[in-house]
């Protein structure tokens, strides 16, 4: 009973925050709401007992992604831009059609927690039986990721490293920071200070 209430409340909060991210017109507030969105997503992962995924979502989604978005926000020009699109009918149709297709795609998926799915009938039993003995790692998820699928994980590390390099090149370029949108005078004067210093 309490799990149902916690699930419903977290999903309701998630919906409210998601709408707020889109509707709020201040970029800084949207970034804040996006951090809350990641936090709520991670909480839902916790409720679903996916502790490893919740760790990753909390660290990357709520932590690094928020800070990276703030760093990108600091690089934006100070003048405000009204980005109000005129025709919103066709985007709505496109988004609705995509949503319907995605929901249609989930119909074929096995039920949540179903033990008879293809993923659980294959190698999973073998992993559970042999992993502690063969790898000597007490955590089963870690033993699969780091030992059985080690090459796969190496590829992921390569992808994340490349992404990190790209972010550094974009954010840490030769241009000094343009400054805050909130107090643009201060930003400009600290800009000149940086160039002279």
């Amino acid at each position, binding site marked *: 009973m309490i799990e149902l209430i916690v699930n419903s409340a977290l999903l309701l909060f998630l919906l409210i925050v998601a709408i707020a991210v889109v509707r709020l017109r201040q970029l800084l507030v949207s970034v804040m709401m996006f951090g809350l969105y990641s936090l709520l997503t991670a909480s839902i992962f916790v409720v679903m007992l996916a502790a490893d995924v919740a760790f990753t979502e909390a*660290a990357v989604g709520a932590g690094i992604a928020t800070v990276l978005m703030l760093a990108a926000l600091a690089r934006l020009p100070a003048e405000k831009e009204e980005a109000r699109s005129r025709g919103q009918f066709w985007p709505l149709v496109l988004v609705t059609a995509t949503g319907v297709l995605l929901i249609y795609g989930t119909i074929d998926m096995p039920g949540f927690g179903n033990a008879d799915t293809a993923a659980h009938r294959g190698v999973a039993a073998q992993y559970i039986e042999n992993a502690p003995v063969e790898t000597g790692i007490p955590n089963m998820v870690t033993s699969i990721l780091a030992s059985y699928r080690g090459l796969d994980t190496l590829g992921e590390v390569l992808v994340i490293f490349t992404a990190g390099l790209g972010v550094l090149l974009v954010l840490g370029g030769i241009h000094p*920071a343009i400054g805050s949108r909130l107090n643009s005078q201060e930003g400009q004067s600290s800009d000149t200070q940086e160039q002279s210093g």
Partner: protein
Amino acid sequence: MIEIVALVLLLSMGIILIRALLGPSLFDRILAVNVFSTKTALLIAVYAWIIDRPDILDIAIVYALINFIAVIAFLKLIVRGDLAASSPEHQR
């Protein structure tokens, strides 16, 4: 009994979310986001007790740390206008 604690935490999260959405000033929103994250960490700790999985408590600790970093980043961006400003001569 502990279920009531979870319910009260959820209720307070809802109230704080309203403050984060309406908050007239930026600092109201920052405080609301900060408190919301704290409540989330508390809710996870209580939930770990309810379902009897103490290993989930680690995630609550990670949340508390991450929350701190995000709030510091927000405040630094607002005060200094740049996340990379670290040396004292940027301060005025």
